[in-house]
């Protein structure tokens, strides 16, 4: 019943990939297991962003803030209180969603770019708090060595936790996207004026989408704490928000799974190139410019097959001449 709403072909591929990822930690070195876990966390973050960017048409420029809020709230509960661990896992995403609601409430009144600009300013306030409130947040150093519950503290067990939660979240996001709510959200992206004229309360609908997206960002935030065992202000810094925005654009922002691909590419680049250069943001900028000019719909949005067919047809036609 539930299964047959997933597209048959990609369903097979996804299941195959999932099985591959299940056995991966047994084969690959520990470091790559860790990198994969980071990719999963980032992929969830990018997927949550794409709900409002690619499918909602909102200029959510500072999505990293909600990831940071989820990580900080969860991380601080684990590090500074004696509350049971699951409180952190629930409080992180909820705090992110509440922050998303409050910031969204202000921003949603503005259109397009102004929405994004106000979000950057409000988000930066939270970054300043994380950066300056030394007693609580550890300031610019952040907090390291956060105690993670034993059953998920090894690199393998945290890998599996992240993988399973990622899969659950992807299924939920897919269902949301295919639901009437998601359908209306995409219609708003295409034509907000017309949506209002068919009886949809556009701003309320967009705000609801922001709350959902920021909740999932908060889930990614708490998973980050599990994988890294630390929190630091860069989680709320605008560079990270730019990175995940580029992940959506790069992977294909009108596709469902595009941001996962984008996250895999950017995280790999950051890991293997970013450590050798101080110019990481410059590289990001160049990627962004190349994307806008050559791949405006991203890797998955680009119809390679059609291009190849028309290219081979042209080649065939010219060889006939």
């Amino acid at each position, binding site marked *: 019943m539930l299964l047959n709403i997933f597209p048959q072909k990609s369903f097979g591929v996804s299941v195959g990939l999932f099985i591959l990822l299940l056995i991966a930690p047994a084969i690959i070195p520990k470091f790559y297991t860790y990198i994969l876990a980071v990719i999963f966390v980032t992929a969830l973050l990018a997927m949550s962003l794409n709900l409002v960017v690619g499918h909602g048409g909102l200029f959510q420029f500072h999505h990293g803030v909600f990831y940071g809020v989820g990580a900080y709230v969860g991380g601080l509960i684990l590090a500074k209180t004696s509350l049971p661990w699951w409180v952190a896992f629930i409080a992180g995403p909820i705090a992110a969603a509440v922050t998303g609601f409050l910031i969204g409430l202000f921003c949603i009144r503005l259109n397009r770019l102004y929405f994004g600009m106000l979000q950057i300013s409000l988000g930066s306030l939270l970054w300043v708090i994380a950066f300056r409130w030394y007693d609580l947040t550890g300031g610019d150093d952040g907090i390291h060595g956060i105690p993670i519950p034993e059953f998920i503290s090894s690199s393998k067990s945290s890998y599996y936790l992240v993988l399973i939660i990622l899969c659950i979240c992807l299924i939920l996001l897919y269902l949301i996207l295919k639901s*009437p709510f998601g359908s209306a959200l995409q219609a708003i992206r295409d034509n907000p004026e017309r949506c209002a004229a*068919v*009886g*949809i309360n556009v701003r309320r609908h967009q705000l*609801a989408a922001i709350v959902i997206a920021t909740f999932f960002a908060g889930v990614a935030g708490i998973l980050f704490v599990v994988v890294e065992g630390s929190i630091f202000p860069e989680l709320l810094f605008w560079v990270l928000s730019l990175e995940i925005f580029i992940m959506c654009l790069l992977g294909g922002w009108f596709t469902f799974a595009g941001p996962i691909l984008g996250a895999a590419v950017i995280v790999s680049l950051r890991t293997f190139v970013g450590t050798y250069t101080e110019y990481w943001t410059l590289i990001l900028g160049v990627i962004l410019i190349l994307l806008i000019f050559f791949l405006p719909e991203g890797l998955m949005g680009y119809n390679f097959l059609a291009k190849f067919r028309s290219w081979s047809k042209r080649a065939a036609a010219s060889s006939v001449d």
Partner: protein
Amino acid sequence: MLYVRELKKFFGDFKAVNGANLKVEKGQLVAVIGPNGAGKTTLFNLICGQLQPDRGEILFNGEDIGRLPPYEICRKGIARSFQIANIFPRLSVFRNVQVSVLSQQKLSNRLFQPAARLAVESTNRILESVGLLDKKLDVAGSLSHGDKRILEIAIALGNEPDLLILDEPTAGMSPEETSTTMKLIQRLAQEQGLTILFCEHDMEVVFGTAQSIMVMQQGQTIIQDLPEEVRQNREVQQAYLGGE
């Protein structure tokens, strides 16, 4: 059903609508005519909430709807099409109409139910009645101009409106398309008992279909009456029909 009294809307110093009066009774087919820039589109935007009036009142079923946002006016039972095709270009034809049907059935906020299984029958029925059923899987943005205009009407029908407002439904259409579209509109009015308010430049079309005609000039209503009376009116002949 709909009363518009002394409605005014200024853009700065410019009086786009300056004393419009209109009366639409249930079941009627009412036309608004007037030269380019007379304020017809602005009047429709005021009725449907895209614009807020500066003066005057708009009563729909006895209730003043002049200050309501578009989505609430739609929920009260007024749906509209736009002069310039205003569709969801990335979505399929089916989904274009389904969006308004789902909204009408108050299902737009459902989160974990596949939309593909909801409101399918009603959506297909509307597509069939306007003749777009065989194109239902096409991406709306790829339709021909004429089909986009029809889709425009189909989206409005998805709201099951009490009053349907059409802004130049045949704009940019070929003569054949125009006549099929007008037949479609007449059929909708007869079969479904729809009340329709539309504006149109083609005089033949207007006098051939409307039961009541309102004439606008420079934002003002000159007259609203039966087609014969409007045709006889000297002021209208001078101002608009050019001594026909």
